[in-house]
């Protein structure tokens, strides 16, 4: 469906993107994860035909976008990071205009507009000027405008920036519905929880370089530990977590307050051994739970620094 091959883009001496490659199949959501300025928007702009790469190529169903009016562009819907709406026009007037840009007019356009308004839950506000909308409603309309021509590939450049949790969930629901319809979504974000919730594969970009491209599970495997057992000890006084490293399945052990966190690769093999060791050594506990490292940890492991601090 969408193939991105070895994209490179420089602005003078500044490397915006280098060697970025990934593909998105039907019904697949690819997350482009990275801090601000990592090159996510540049990558999306190249895919949308707004920028030409210095090298590499973008293939949409095997074809490159060759000109401004190339019909291949009809397969792409872009949701820009900045709100791309006319505040002084109503929601319907905005959508009528954007539909016309894809040569949709008359009954066809009306149907498409009704469908997307319905999808994003703004049918009852269709006649209102956009300037009267909340930030979340504008974001939803911003998404709707990209769906009018029923594109196969949807490029979403941080579509939830500045949105309240309720609207964010509404947008996620919309995107999940689109995914079920077989759309391919390219979703840029610097929110790990969004990528974890929505994306089938995650491409991590930092300083323009692609440093990982895998499923969430695959990315977890890159970590020294993939699971953490959190144990609340009855009495942590004098407990030395380093003692536990003698166990073959234990990769890490830390004590914070009364909670012991033990890192293991495999929960089913590691957990019984850890709990047995505690009992055998006279350390009673009252609560046990398991935790998975998040993408923040993955990013930290891969780049050596926190995603939010980058």
């Amino acid at each position: 469906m969408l193939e991105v091959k070895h994209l490179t883009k420089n602005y003078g001496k500044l490397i915006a993107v280098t060697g970025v490659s990934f593909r998105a199949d039907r019904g697949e959501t690819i997350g482009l994860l990275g801090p601000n300025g990592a090159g996510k928007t540049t990558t999306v702009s190249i895919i949308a035909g707004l920028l030409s790469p210095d090298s590499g190529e973008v293939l949409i169903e095997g074809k490159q976008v060759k000109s401004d009016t190339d019909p291949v562009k009809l397969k792409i819907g872009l949701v820009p990071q900045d709100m791309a709406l006319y505040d002084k026009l109503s929601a319907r007037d905005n959508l009528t205009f954007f539909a016309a840009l894809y040569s949709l007019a008359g009954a066809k356009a009306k149907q498409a507009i009704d469908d997307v308004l319905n999808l994003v839950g703004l049918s009852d506000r269709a006649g209102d000027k956009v300037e009267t909308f909340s930030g979340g409603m504008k974001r939803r309309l911003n998404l709707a405008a990209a769906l009018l021509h029923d594109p196969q590939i949807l490029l979403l450049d941080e579509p939830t920036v500045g949105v309240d949790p309720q609207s964010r969930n509404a947008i996620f629901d919309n995107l999940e519905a689109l995914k079920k319809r077989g759309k391919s979504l390219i979703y840029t974000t610097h929110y790990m929880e969004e990528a974890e919730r929505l994306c089938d594969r995650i491409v991590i970009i930092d300083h323009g370089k692609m440093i990982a491209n895998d499923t969430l599970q695959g990315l977890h495997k890159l970590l020294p530990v993939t699971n953490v057992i959190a144990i609340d000890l009855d009495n942590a006084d004098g407990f030395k977590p380093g003692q536990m490293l003698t166990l073959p399945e234990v990769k890490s052990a830390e004590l914070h307050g009364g909670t012991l966190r033990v890192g293991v690769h495999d929960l089913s093999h590691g957990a019984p051994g850890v709990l047995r060791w505690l009992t055998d050594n006279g350390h009673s506990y009252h609560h046990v739970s398991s935790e998975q490292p998040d993408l923040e940890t993955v990013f930290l492991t891969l780049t050596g620094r926190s995603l939010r601090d980058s």
Partner: protein
Amino acid sequence: MIQFLALVRKDLKLFFNDRKAVIVGLLVPIVLASFFGYMFGGQSGKAETSKVPVLIIDQDGSDISRGLITQLGSDKNLDVKPSTLDAAREAVRKGKATVAIVIPKDFGKDAGRALFTGANTGENKPQLSVLYDPSHNVELGMVRGILSGAVMETVSKEMFTGNSGREMVNESLAQVENNPRISAEDRKALRHLLGGVNELNAQREREGESGQGAISGGLTMPYDTREQAITSGKDIEYNGYAHAFAGMGIQFILFMGLDVGVALLMLRQSGLWQRLRAAPLSRTMLLGSRTVSASLIAGFILLVLFSFARVVFGVHILGSFAGFVGVCAAFSLMTAAFGLMVAALGETVEATRGYSIMATLIMVMLGGAWVPTFVFPAWLRKLTVVVPTRWAMDGLDSMIWRGLGFSSALAPIGVLLLFTLLFGVVAVMRFRWRTE
């Protein structure tokens, strides 16, 4: 075509949706054009101009100085009041009077003498001091002209018919006889001239006594003027509002073009530009639609302005209507292309707004939209041929109040279209399409 129409319709919708902006955008040029139209002649073509305030300090008190004051006071362009030297100096300094004329002691006597012999005797002519407000140079020129005529008329009248005139002629005759610097030939001629004046005065005195009535003597302007404004036809008076509405229309349409450019510059930095560029639209369509919508808006502004001028001030298109429409259309296109060029050359919105406002005002000023180009120095007048607004003004004036035919609109239309092409080419060549 759907795309092109949608782009144009959207621009028009955005323009007309902001009703307050539309109303203010039309009201301001109408108010200014009405004001300038009134100032430059109104509907009758005769502006009610204010009189120039002139103060006279009469230190002479002779028949001639009194006659001069009367003569100046009778001029419809002057508001003459007596004053003292100090008060006059203060009034001019404060701008309350434009000119003060000081008639020095013995002016009447010296002026009469100088009239006949001043040039030959080498004696200094009497001086009239003129104190003036340097910010009113134009009025100074006018007062100087009126003063020259009045002095000549008053002094010569007194010389030929007045009581002091006879004394003065006799004195002058004596001077001529005794002045060694006058050559024999000149002396003979002057003796003859002054003797003739004496004879003329004696004859006028006799005529006056015999009841035949003395002729009011003195030198006067040897001509009268009959002024006739050449407009589009006989009995059609010049309408000052015609030029004013054309000028203000041009100015505000240029500002509209500038707004189009700045808006495009801002659009290019927004998500909307990304969305437009992501759609299958050609660059020609994106810029072309903007040109058409801006031209339509410009046409609308001109339509409203001239409709108002027609209904309220009776401004009619006295020349070719097709020519008028052609000039308006060409100017509208030129303005739209100017806006695109602004967007293409602009870096930041603030800087672009600054330098394009400056460029617009210079174009308006040099085009003669504020003041007629005839007040410019000759070199500047020649320079204005490279200013598109000058051609627009010429074209509109020709079609509106000069009442000329379509052929007179061809040159302005052609030049404006050339400017459109020039600005358009620069815009297309320099436009930064990419979003980086």
